C-alpha cells in the first residue's frame, strides 16, 4: 500500500466521519440514558424500523450475553417499536424520519452515536434479526471475550453472517413475540461460501449461503456480502464504511490470518427468514430504501413467489457454536 493510497483512505475516513457529524441533526432523542453508562460497559448499536415483535427476544438475548447498554435509532416506526424501546431502562433511543438510504443504510447515524458515546468501549453493531455467537458463548459472557481480546491487543472481531431459514414455506410458522427465532429458522448452509479479498480495504468479501443459492444463482456478483466485523473496541477516529462489512482504518479489517493460522471469530445468526419477511420485503420494495436499488429485495420477491422453500436436503440444523466451529464457519483461534 503506497503512501498515496493510504492518504486517500485517510481522506475517505475523514469524509465519512464528517458525514456522520452532519447527519447527527437528523436524530431526535427519545430516551437518553447515556449518563448511566460505566467506563467499561459493553454497548450494542442498532438501527431498526417496525421490529416490535422481535424486540423482546433480541433484548433478552443480548442482556444474557452481558451487554450493558443499548443504542437504538428508530427509523420512523409505526408499530410501537419506539415506545417499547423508550421504556427499557438500559436503552437510549433516537428517532428519525429521514431517509435510511441517504444515511447509507443507517451507518451514518450509528457512526455518529458511536463517535459520541462509544469511544473506549467495546461496541457491537447488529441488526434486530442478527444474533451474535462466539466461541464458548454458552459458558462465557461477552465480557470474557472482550477481556481476552483486550489482553491479546485485538481491536476488532469478525463474525460472519449465517442466514437461518425454516424448513418449508417461510410463512408456515408464525413468529410469536419473545420466541427464539432459531426455533423456527434453525437451518443453514454449511459450506457454499465464496471468499475474495478486497485489496483496497483489506477485508475479505464473502458471499454465499441460501440467498446466493436461491436468489442469485445466475447473478453471483449481486449476492449479498456475508462478512461482518460487528465487535470493535471503538475509538472516535474509527468509522464503518459500508454497513458493518468494513471499517477504516483498514487495519481493523484484518480479522483473518494470512499465514495459515486461524484467528478467533464468531457468527451472526441471521434470522431474517421468518413469516414477517414476506410482508417486510414487499414493504421495503415499496420504500426503495435498500442497497443497490433494493435489488436484493426484488430478487427475493421474485424468488419467494416461485419457490418459497430455502431448505434442501444438505441443509444443516443448528445446534450450537461448536457445530459452527467444526464445520469451519467460525474458529476458536487460540482462545481455549
Amino acid at each position: 500500500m503506497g503512501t498515496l493510497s493510504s492518504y486517500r483512505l485517510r481522506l475517505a475516513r475523514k469524509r465519512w466521519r464528517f458525514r456522520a457529524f452532519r447527519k447527527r441533526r437528523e436524530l431526535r432523542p427519545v430516551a437518553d440514558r447515556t449518563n448511566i453508562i460505566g467506563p467499561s460497559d459493553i454497548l450494542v448499536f442498532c438501527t431498526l424500523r417496525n421490529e416490535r415483535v422481535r424486540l423482546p427476544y433480541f433484548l433478552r438475548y443480548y442482556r444474557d450475553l452481558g451487554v450493558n447498554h443499548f443504542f437504538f435509532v428508530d427509523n420512523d416506526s409505526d408499530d410501537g417499536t419506539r415506545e417499547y424501546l423508550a421504556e427499557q431502562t438500559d436503552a437510549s433511543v433516537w428517532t428519525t424520519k429521514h431517509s435510511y438510504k441517504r444515511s447509507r443504510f443507517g451507518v451514518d447515524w450509528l457512526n455518529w452515536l458511536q463517535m459520541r458515546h462509544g469511544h473506549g468501549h467495546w461496541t457491537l453493531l447488529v441488526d434486530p434479526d442478527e444474533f451474535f455467537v462466539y466461541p464458548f458463548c454458552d459458558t462465557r459472557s461477552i465480557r470474557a471475550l472482550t477481556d481476552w481480546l483486550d489482553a491479546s491487543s485485538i481491536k476488532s472481531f469478525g463474525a460472519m453472517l449465517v442466514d437461518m431459514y425454516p424448513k418449508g414455506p417461510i410463512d408456515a410458522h408464525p413468529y410469536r413475540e419473545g420466541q427464539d427465532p432459531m426455533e423456527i429458522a434453525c437451518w443453514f448452509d454449511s459450506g457454499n461460501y465464496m471468499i475474495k479479498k478486497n485489496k483496497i480495504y483489506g477485508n475479505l468479501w464473502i458471499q454465499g449461503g441460501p440467498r446466493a443459492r436461491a436468489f442469485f444463482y445466475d447473478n453471483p456478483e449481486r449476492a449479498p456480502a456475508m462478512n461482518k466485523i460487528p465487535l470493535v473496541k471503538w475509538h472516535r477516529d474509527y468509522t464503518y464504511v459500508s454497513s458493518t462489512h468494513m471499517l477504516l482504518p483498514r487495519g481493523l479489517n484484518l480479522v483473518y490470518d494470512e499465514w495459515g493460522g486461524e484467528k478467533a471469530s464468531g457468527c451472526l445468526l441471521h434470522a431474517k427468514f421468518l413469516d414477517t419477511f414476506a410482508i417486510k420485503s414487499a414493504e421495503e420494495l415499496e420504500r426503495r430504501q435498500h442497497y443497490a436499488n433494493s435489488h436484493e429485495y426484488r430478487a427475493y420477491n421474485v424468488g419467494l413467489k416461485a419457490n418459497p422453500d430455502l431448505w434442501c436436503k444438505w441443509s444443516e440444523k443448528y445446534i450450537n457454536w461448536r457445530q459452527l466451529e467444526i464445520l469451519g464457519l467460525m474458529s476458536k483461534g487460540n482462545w481455549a
Partner: protein
Amino acid sequence: MSVGYIMLCHTALHRAAQVARHWAQRDCPVVIHVDKRVGRHHFDKLKASLADLPNVRFSTRHACEWGTWGIVAATQQAAELMLKSFPEVRHVCLTSGSCLPLRPVEEMVKYLEDRPRTDFIESVTTADVTWTVGGFDAERFTLRFPFSWKKHRHLFDAYVKLQRRVNFRRRIPKGLVPHLGSQWWCLTRQTLSAILEDPDRKTYDNYFKRVWIPDESYFQSMVRLYSTNVESRTLTLTKFDFQGKPHIFYDDHLQLLRRSDCFIARKIWPHADRLYKVFLASDTNVRAVAEPNPGKIDRLFAKAVERRTRGRAGLYMQSRYPNDNWENGRTCAAYSVFEGFSDLFENFETWLNKAAGGRVHGHLFAPDRVQFAGGESVYNGAMSDSAALRDYNPKSFLCNLIWNTRGERQCFQFGPKDGQDIADFMAYDPNAQISVISGAWALPLFHSNLNFSDIRKRAALLQKIEAAHLGILRNPYVKARVRIWTLAEFIENPMEPLQTIIDEISPRAMRRLTEAPKMVDLAGFGQFLQNLKNQGMQPLLMGDFPVGDDPRQNSARHGRPYLVK
C-alpha cells in the same frame, strides 16, 4: 513450619484479597505487593478489606511494567519483608493476584514439608530454551535494554539494532550463568535469604537492571549459585500462548483444573465466579499427596496454539484466508481428476465407482451446470449446481467441495470443454491426483453428427486448450501427482495405468482389476484423424493412429469383457 505467599497484584484486587484471605486464614502468611500504578483509592480499599488479618503485610510499591526491573525489585522487597516478619516460614511461594490455589493449602504445606530442601523454580540455560518470544534468548543477557518495549517500541528496536551492528556485548558478572524460566517460583528460606543477602548483590542487581525481562531470569540465575537442590519446574500451572501471554482460565475449565492436581493456577479470569467459589471453599479432606499432572491442560492449550499458528488444512473461512503457498495444504484431502477417461470408456463413472469406491462426479466444471454425482442439483454443504456461482469463484468451489466431503474420496472428470480457470490451482495442489489421456476429446467429435467443418473448428479449439493445459501440468514445479498418456499409448495397454491409479486411490484394497471399462468404438478413428489433417488441422495430442490400422480392442465391441488375470 509453614509456607509464605508473595502476591504481585495490579488488577482485580478484590480477587487477590479473596485469595490472600484464603491463605492467611489457613496460617500461611501473605505479603502483597500492589503495582504503584494502581490508584491510591483501590489500594486503600484492599488494605482495609484485609485489615483484620494479622499475617497479611503490604510491601513497598514499585511500578511494574512488563519486562522491566520493577517486578524484580518488588519481589525482592516483598521477600525480605516475608523473611523478616514471619520467621516460621520455610518455603516462600511467588504468586500473582490472578492466581488461584487448586488444592487445599494443607496439601501444599505437606508436599513442601516432605521436600524441605527443594527449591521449585524453572531454570533452564539459554541454549535450551525454545519458548522465548521476540527472539531474544542469549541476547537478553548481552545487550542493554533501557527503553520500554510497550511504550517506546521504535526506540527499543532501534537500540537493539544499533547494538547488534556495533557488536556490543555486556559482560556477565563472574560466576553467573544465565538461566531462564517461569517467573513463578517456590524457594526455601535458605536459598532465598542467601540470594537477598549476597555481598555482591549490588553488582548482580545492577547487571540485571538492564537485562530484558529480568523477572524471568534474575532468580532463575541466582538460584544456581546457592541452591543445593533445584527442582526445575514450577508449582504454578501457567500456560503461554504463541504471543507469550498467559492463557486464561474460565468457569468451564473447572473439571480440567480439578483433575490437573496442580497446586496453583494462573491466570484466572476475575469474573470466573464459579472457579473462585469452588476452589476457595473450605474443604479440609486432604487427599493423598498426588504429583501435579497438567497433561490434559497442556494438550488443550497446545492444540489452541496449533490452531492459531497452523490452522486446519484446506479450510478457507472468515478468519483463515492464507496467502498463496501458506495454506499448509491447498485443499483438505486427496482427490482425483480424470481427463479423457469418460470420453474413451463408456460408463466410466459407474465403473470407477465400483472399482475404487469414493464419490465419482461427472464434469464438475462443465460449462452448463455442475455435474455432481447422481445428477444432484444441490450437494454436500448446500453447494449449488449453478455454473455461474461456480465460475464466479472456482477456487472456493473446489475447496468447499473437498472440505464438505471430508472423509470421502472425491473423483471427477475434467477436460478441455470445461472451464479452465481452476487448472492452475489443482496443478499446484499436492492433494490432486491428475490423470490425463490426451487427445481423447476427439472421440466424441468422431462419433458426433456434426458437419465436418464444424468438427474441424471444434477440434482445433479443444486441442489448443488441452495443449495449454498440458503445459501447466508439465511445469517442473507442479505439486500434483500428474500422469499423462496419449490416447494411442493408453489403448495399447489400458489395464496397467488403470491399476496404478486405482491402487493409489484405495491402497488398502490391493485387488487386481478383473473387469475393464468398455471402450468406445474406435474403428475408423485413424481415418478420421487423417481427414482432419487433410482439412489442414494437425491433430497432435492423441499420438500415432495409422490410417486403416484400427486398434485391436475391437473385441470390446462384442460385449466381451477384456480380462486380465
